[in-house]
Every structure is written in C-alpha cells, then in structure tokens.
C-alpha cells in the first residue's frame, strides 16, 4: 500500500513539473491565436479566433523579417554543427585511440573546458572579432563555437569502446587514420552524432547572448535576437499576440525536430553515459 502511495505521489510530482513546463508554451500558443483586446480580460486562457490569429501571424511575418531571422538561424546552426563534427570527431578519435605524448593532459584540458561558461572568453573574443572587422557577419556567429569540448568529450567516450582489432584490420586494409574516423568510427557512433546534433542545434538556435554581443544589424539577426529586437522596437507594443506568434514560429522547428530525434537523443546520451 505504502509503495503505491509513494508511486502515486511521485507521479503527481512529475505531472506538476510537466504542467509547469508546458503551461507557458500553451499560453504562448493561446495568446498568439487570440485578438488584441481579449488577452488582458482576466480569463486564464484567452479564447482563440481565426481572424485574430491570421492578423497576429501576418503582423509578425511582415513587420519584422522573421523568415530572414530563421534563415540566419538555420545557416548559423548548420555551419556550427558541421564544423563541430568535422573537428570533434577526429579529436575524439585521437584522444580515444591514438597513443601520443601528452594525451592525458590534453584530455584533462578538454574536461576542464567543459566547465568554462561562454561568458568567460566572450570579451576577448568580441575584441578580436571587432578588430578583424567581422562584427555583423556569419563568421562572428559561427567561429567561436566550431571547437566543441562537449563534442570532443562525447565522441571520445563513444569511440573508446570501439574494438582495437577492427582498427588494426582497417590499417592493414589500407584505411588512413582519417578514413578510419569517417568510414568506421562515425557510422558506428551515429547515436552519439544524433544526440550531439540535437543538443548543438537547440543550444545555438536558442542562443541570445552571443548574437546580442556581435550582431546589431537586422539582416544578421538570429531568431531569439530578432524577437528581442521586435519586442524592444515598439512595433509590438500592445500587440502581445503578434509577439507570441513570432515565438511560436521560432520554436516550432525545434519542437518538430526534437519529436523526431528524441529516441536517438536519449539512446545516444545513455550509451555514452553507460561507458
């Protein structure tokens, strides 16, 4: 009996946490579908109306270049992800499988790097980018993130369990070390790649801090920065519905992507953790 009670309590707690997490999203969607005046009328969820919804979404799409923001977001996230994998996979392979002088120290440095927040190198990075005249460019948005210590760490953990005899066989068969990474290790580590891709894309799509630092021009803004600018610009004053419509459109690609990637994400992370 007491075990049942405990499990019921646990479930209740989880439900409460889930509701607390989901409610803001539900509210965002509801407001984005409601007419201007109804939002502050006092009911918990304003009632939706088709014409109001159309107005809100049309306003968000026309008053600010929301599609441009999303295109910027896609370009930046894609470039970051590709470069991160191009660098982290060989680095993780070297740390996992190639004996070389200083490897333990280097690996310790990678682990240490996991603990340093983005804000620490932000100022020197900003100064460097400003001096190079690269503010307001894709390079400024992408370059600081191409080396992902998290990616290196994740790939190293995944590659470490790859059987050494297979690597020896590959070397005898004529695989170069890079061919081993791209043709053997990475295909075998696809759950890790999927997990890493999801985490990386979510982090950089949602990132407000760094774009705020290096981008001021509207045509280089990423979705969160664009929304922030929209809110601050006065265009949206009193038009909460349009702001929320922008929020919905910016969040939607991630949610859809996550729904598809969820299973791989969880598998990739638990596999890496189990090793």
């Amino acid at each position, binding site marked *: 009996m007491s075990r049942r009670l405990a499990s019921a309590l646990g479930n209740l707690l989880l439900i409460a946490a889930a509701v607390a997490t989901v409610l803001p999203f539900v509210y965002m969607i509801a407001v984005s579908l409601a007419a201007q005046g109804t939002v502050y009328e006092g009911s918990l969820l304003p009632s939706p109306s088709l014409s109001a919804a159309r107005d809100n979404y049309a306003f968000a799409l026309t008053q600010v270049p929301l599609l441009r923001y999303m295109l910027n977001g896609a370009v930046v996230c894609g470039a970051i992800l590709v470069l991160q994998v191009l660098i982290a996979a060989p680095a993780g392979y070297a740390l996992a499988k190639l004996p070389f002088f200083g490897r333990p120290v280097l690996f310790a440095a990678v682990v240490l790097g996991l603990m340093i927040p983005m804000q620490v190198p932000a100022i020197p990075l900003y100064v460097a980018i400003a001096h190079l005249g690269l503010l307001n460019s894709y390079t400024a948005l992408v370059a600081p993130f191409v080396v992902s210590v998290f990616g290196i760490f994740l790939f190293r953990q995944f590659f470490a369990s790859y*059987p050494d005899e297979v690597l020896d066989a590959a070397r005898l068969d004529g695989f170069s070390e890079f061919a081993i990474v791209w043709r053997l290790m990475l295909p075998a580590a696809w759950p890790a790649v999927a997990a890493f891709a999801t985490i990386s894309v979510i982090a950089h799509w949602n990132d407000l801090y760094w774009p705020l630092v290096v981008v001021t021009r509207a045509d280089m803004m990423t979705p969160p920065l664009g929304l922030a600018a929209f809110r601050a610009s006065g265009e949206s004053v009193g038009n909460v519905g349009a702001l929320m419509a922008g929020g919905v459109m910016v969040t939607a690609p991630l949610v859809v992507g996550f729904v598809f990637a969820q299973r791989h994400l969880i598998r990739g992370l638990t596999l890496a953790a189990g090793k």
Partner: protein
Amino acid sequence: MTASQSLDVSGIVRAFGPARALDDFSLSVAPGEFVSILGPSGCGKSTLLRVVAGLEDADAGTIRIGDRSVRGLRPKDRQIAFVFQSYALYPHMTCRQNLAAPLVMRELSPFGRNRLVGRLVPGSGAVRRAIAERVERTAALLGIEALLDRRPSQLSGGQRQRVALGRALIREPRLFLLDEPLANLDAALRNRTRGELHDLQRRLGTTTLFVTHDQAEAMAISDRVVVMFAGRVRQIGTPDDLYRNPVDLDVARFLSQPHLNAVGAALIANTLPSLRVRGTPVARAGGVVAFRPEHARVMEAGRGLPFTVRRAEHAGSDAHLFVALRDGTRCVARIPSETIADWPRGRHGILAFDPEAAWIFPAPEGDAGHAPHLSVVA
C-alpha cells in the same frame, strides 16, 4: 595470384617496460610454407604477428618478406593479410562491403570511394565492377555467396570466420598471418574449419604464419611448428620431429597434452637399476625420465614401478588411469577402456614404460622431478 614469398625474421626484440614479449626471436619461413607458432598464452606469439604486420614496432631486429626489408613500411604497404581471433569485421558494413573494403581503400581514390561523387570520377566505374567481380569470386571460393548482404551481427561464429578469411585473401597478399582464427569456434566446427583452412592454403600456396596455443591444431595442419616460451624460440621442427624429439621437458609437456609423465631418475634407478633410456643408463642419469601415457602400461605384477590407483577417466576406446608412485609422483597410463573395471581406486599394481619412447631431461628448476605434471593433478 602473387608468387609465394619467404619470410625472414631475425633478432627481433620487443619489450614492454622491463618485460620482453619477444626476446631475440628469429625464424625463416620458406615460400608457401605453413608454419605454426605454438606456445602458452602470454608467450609473445601474438606480438610476433603484430610486429611482422607492422602494427607494432620492434625495438631491434630485421624482418624481410621476399628479398626486401619491410623496415619503415606501413602495415598497408606490407601486403600482408591478418585474420584476428575476434575476426575484426567492420560491424556496420555488409559482408559484401567487408570483403570489398581492402580493394576499395587501395584501388579507388578518396573521391572515387564516395557514393555520391564516385560516379563522376573517370575510370572508377570499371574499378568498381572489377572489385564486385572479385568479391563474388572470393565468396564462391569460401561458399559464402548467400551471406553477402548480411551484416556481421547476423552471422554465426563460423560464418564470420569465413568472411574474415575472405577479406584477408581477396587482395592476394604475400603473407597470411592468422592469430588463433579457430579459437572462438566450437570443437566440431573447429576441426572441420582447420581442414578447410589447410586445403585453402595449399591451393593458394601463400606463405602462412599461424598462431595457436592448441598443440593438436598446430600438429594437424603445419609444415613446421615453432614452439615458443617467454618470447624465445625453444624448438622448431616438423610436427613429427617435435613429437618424437622434444628438446626439453617444457616442449615435451606442451606437446603431450593433456598428460606427460615425469618421474625422478633416482626413483627409477632404485627399482630398475639396469634400465637404459635410449641407451643411457638411468642409474647414472640425473634429472627426470619423461614418457607419454600411450607408452606406459600397467600390470598386476612384474618388473616396474609400484603404484596405487587414484582414479580412472573413460575416454572412449581408451581410458586414462591416474596413479601415484611410491614417492607420491603422479603418473598416467593409457589403458583399453574395457579394462577400466580391473583398476578400482586404491588397487596396487606395477607401471612399466617403453624406454625407447622415453627421454631423460634435466630436472626443471626448483623441483627434483617429484612434482607431478600440473595437468595430472587428480
């Protein structure tokens, strides 16, 4: 097929810290010869293969394949095929891709290998067709055509072993290195595969080094056997040579599994003072007299070593009778299994052996020859 090549290994040293896995190891293998490296686990035999393949560097010594030193050549440039105990197939590739991998990596450029842009690289189509044809031919040779589109995880151990063998021989190497390729198969399959491997090697004529810790395996399929202990060659010879003329007690024991009898010469001289072992009077020899269970016989009375029966093991047509001599030395005699009932535990009898099939060896260090052979502990 490429012409068979000789292999000359001389003075190889490979140390891991203070331990020497290979200690001044030398060996010459004639073109087309099948040579087994036999030794207990940890004697350095796998290290030898890895050094020959170039997967590990030797600290000293030279390796020549054919007339050329392979010093400084990378593994893939040595034209050696290696079959690993774990088979080491590429897990995410089909068997067809596994077989093709050595050819694809050698004969196609990095762009030609790519599935998307590969078609645009001039000439790669013809190479691809040639590779596909060789995969089919190799698969037919090994009888694995039906498995080509499966992945290694969908195959049994024996099938994986075949695919690994196919991947090794598809590129027509100058040298086969086989590292206990049969060890993970069950007994019946191991015996069959052993025979097929032998036939295949004969047909291809490729010089082969075969590492094993199983003396029966080594004796069954080798032209010559190298017995190796602690990184050194102890004896090289044909299977028959090793069986009849082991150089010392270690080799004799290793080639007499499961049992070798080793009795102190002094004990024998006590009971049989005039006995000569291959001409040498036992009374004047020190050390131990060694003989195999098949050369021992047991009697109720007569001239020989008195014993007490400890137990008997039935082994089909024969049985093994485990006995203790007067000083506690344990011996084993092979007897016809129908006589097993005559020798209950505790029964006394006389053990005799054929002195022309026995050897006198110096006593192993640290014991006077009284200690029973390890595998005879009853």
